[in-house]
């Protein structure tokens, strides 16, 4: 069986739900959204703490209430739970399965909004045995908020990206305080760490310049081995929470025909949020790993606007005029593909990250001429965003983003 619709959204988190809501507001009513979990909302569903929704709804929500509001606002679409997409085929055909068996979906526009997940222990190649009690924040939050259980009593928190503070809040909800926060780098990664530490981490030692080198324990975690620069030291604990290092969830994209950008590790997009197959659009954290829910929400909305143009045949059918190349210590830039009518016909918003702490000049060079530049001071875990002002993109044969470290 194949169901046809104008739009098919894969993923019911902030990006997908926001896209569904915005499409309805723009008069697109034939929208199907597939969510593989048993509830809508994505990651915020199990972030039981406050901090969501201020920009979107002018009010601060806890994760679950925010998730509910997103879902309520998207209710005009055909929202289908427990539906797992299995395969992306050329031309907008998606094979899926659900409780009543396999089902195919064909849409004029498919939105990939799969989100991101943290890097697990295995991909971090951490030494040691395989005791129970090692998990990512995402799993911990599901234990605590969705199942009212905490799998340990004296865990350590690895990493200090913003999500680590979400971990602290989750532990506090479970009545626990971690033994330590362990960070490889010389400083805490999240913005405004002082504020966070004062509020949440009071009394929790933050060990910077410290590497987790081994996990100890047979059936359960009994401790860890750390290295602060003077050889291995042991530390007792009964759990290890591996936070951050988010990666786009590309399980369906990687084996498909849709092109992945090695920098973002998400689908490569053009300035209309379209993937290499123009039937596919992408929004939210699948584009590059973690940004805030609010950011994903705005992208969902932006994609909806592009889809409306697509349904009116208002987007170029040809392949993009240029691929953006990178120079200097840049981890990624997106969109990765540019048309020469940008940015006069639509906003050209670049987002990028650097590979290391760097100060220098960031420039956009089109066909050999610098069309935009600015001095920056950047850290790897923080987003750089800029809008290219209206400009003649010339023949737009070569576009490069260059960062000259000072």
């Amino acid at each position, binding site marked *: 069986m194949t169901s046809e619709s104008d739009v098919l959204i894969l993923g019911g988190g902030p990006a997908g739900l926001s896209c569904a809501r915005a499409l309805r507001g723009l008069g697109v009513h034939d929208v199907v959204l597939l969510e593989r979990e048993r509830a809508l909302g994505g990651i915020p569903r199990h972030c039981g703490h406050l901090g969501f929704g201020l920009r979107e709804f002018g009010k601060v929500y806890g994760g679950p209430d925010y998730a509910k509001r997103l879902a309520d606002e998207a209710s005009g679409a055909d929202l289908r739970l427990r539906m797992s997409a299995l395969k992306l085929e050329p031309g907008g055909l998606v094979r899926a399965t659900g409780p009543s068996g*396999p089902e195919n979906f064909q849409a004029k526009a498919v939105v990939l909004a799969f989100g991101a997940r943290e890097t697990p*222990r295995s991909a971090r*190649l951490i030494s040691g*045995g395989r005791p129970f009690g090692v998990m*990512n924040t*995402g799993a911990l939050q599901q*234990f605590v908020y*969705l199942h009212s259980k905490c799998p340990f009593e004296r865990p350590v928190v690895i990493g200090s990206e913003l999500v680590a503070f979400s971990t602290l809040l989750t532990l506090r909800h479970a009545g626990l305080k971690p033994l330590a926060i362990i960070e490889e780098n010389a400083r805490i990664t999240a913005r405004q760490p002082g504020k966070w530490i004062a509020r949440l981490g009071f009394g929790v030692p933050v060990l910077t310049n410290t590497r987790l*080198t081994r996990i100890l324990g047979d059936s359960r975690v009994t401790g860890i081995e750390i290295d602060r620069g003077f050889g291995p030291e042991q530390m007792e604990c009964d759990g290890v929470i591996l936070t951050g290092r988010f990666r786009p969830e590309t399980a369906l994209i*990687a084996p498909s025909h849709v092109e992945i950008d090695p920098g973002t590790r998400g689908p490569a997009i053009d300035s209309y949020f379209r993937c290499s197959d123009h039937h596919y659009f992408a929004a939210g954290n699948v584009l590059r790993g973690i940004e805030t829910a609010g950011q994903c929400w705005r992208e969902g909305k932006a994609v909806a606007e592009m889809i409306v143009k697509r349904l009116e045949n208002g987007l170029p059918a040809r392949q993009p005029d240029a691929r953006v190349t990178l120079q200097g210590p840049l981890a990624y830039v997106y969109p990765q593909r540019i048309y020469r009518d940008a940015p006069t016909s639509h906003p050209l918003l670049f987002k990028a990250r650097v590979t290391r702490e760097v100060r220098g000049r960031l420039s956009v060079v089109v066909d050999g001429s610098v069309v935009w530049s600015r001095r920056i001071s950047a850290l790897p875990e923080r987003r750089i965003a800029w809008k290219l002002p209206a400009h003649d993109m010339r023949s737009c044969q070569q576009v490069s983003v260059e960062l000259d470290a000072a």
Partner: protein
Amino acid sequence: MREPIANSRAVIIGAGVVGCAIFRRLAIAGLEPIMLEAASDILDGASKGNSALLHTGFDAPADSIELNCIQSGHREYLTIRGKLNLPLVESGALVVAWDEEQLAKLPAIVVKAHRNGVTDVTQIDRDELRKREPHLSERGLGAVYVPGEHIIDPWSAPLAYAHQGLAHGGKILRRCGVTGGAFDGVHWTLQTTLGEISAGVVINAAGNHGDLVEAINQPPAFAITPRKGQFVVFDKPASKLLHAIILPVPTERTKGVVVCRTAFGNLLVGPTAEDQQDRSRADVDRATLDLLIAKGVEMIPELADQPVNAIYAGLRPATQFKDYQIAVNRERHWITAAGIRSTGLTAALGIAQMIGRSFAETFGDVREAEPIWTPVPNLAEERPRQYMTEAGGDIVCHCELVTRGEIAAALEGPLPAGDLGGLKRRTRCMMGRCQGFYCSAQVLAMAEGRLQP
């Protein structure tokens, strides 16, 4: 005198792949065997971490018990796998020469294979190698092609053997560690953590604890030094980079690092060979994992861009001898099946045949029954999985596409999962790229009260 908690004519110590295969064989032979396992679930020792290959024996020592058991085991697997719903990825293997010195050794490998009765083995040149494996590094100078080497599911196979043994009246006691025993000339009385068990004949299939269990009967003629093997498993897209199993030109000590697909659609690099004293701990080690990845990338350059899914280590029960330690002691009513190293997954059915025959000849009174087939759920990519059927698309583990029904089924039945590891091996839940980010809380909620912590 206390009453034994259980008794049987045949008691097998150790529920690894070898124990399970012997259990199956003796059960079909009408002996109603009992299999004892110290851990919370079967397959918790050496059998939990191997490279999941069905070998031909092309490179096994000539005229060895190992070769004999590999070949009879291989044949039996092919005969019974359909009835037990077990997969077979017919990949073939290539022993690749990466330098001139190795290239010079290839003809001898072919000769040895033919001598071992594996007559379809041939040498192929560089161009043929490139044609077969376009993603392999261009440094490959040639290879020996072994069409009969295949990839199987290392856990579903022994699980199916155990189920078949149960269907024939066998019994499995888990969390039942054997601590001692005494022979009165007719019966063995085994002391276990669950109580005394009476046995007509004891079969030692205790894997990495083989010599310790052997000492219950007599001073062991062999000593086990667990040999650790670490593995790196790459995510599913990497499996597209390879067709055959890539074997190195072997050295004296080990078959070396293999690169191959898995039945579950991943790509695996390993194992290492590291001797250690500890019989149960199998730690992974960052430096070694980095080396394995580098080795994989050296052979398949495109692996450099592929994400790692899982890391694990297994322990294989190596002894000071090259060959398996299989013996029947008629006077002491004791059978030994020890020192079964990396080839045990293939050889298990062959070892079981050998022990079944010995049992009948030595101790008699065996009544072979018509086999009852107990197909197990398929977990391999090459055959239909439950999520693909009309019935069951309610997926809990999204990475490995494991349904609610599959997890519920693994928690029930005659041999329910005994611990989380057992549940993972039965269903593949939490074994994928996210390693439980999405599903672990839900899986554990489903398993609440049913698994050993």
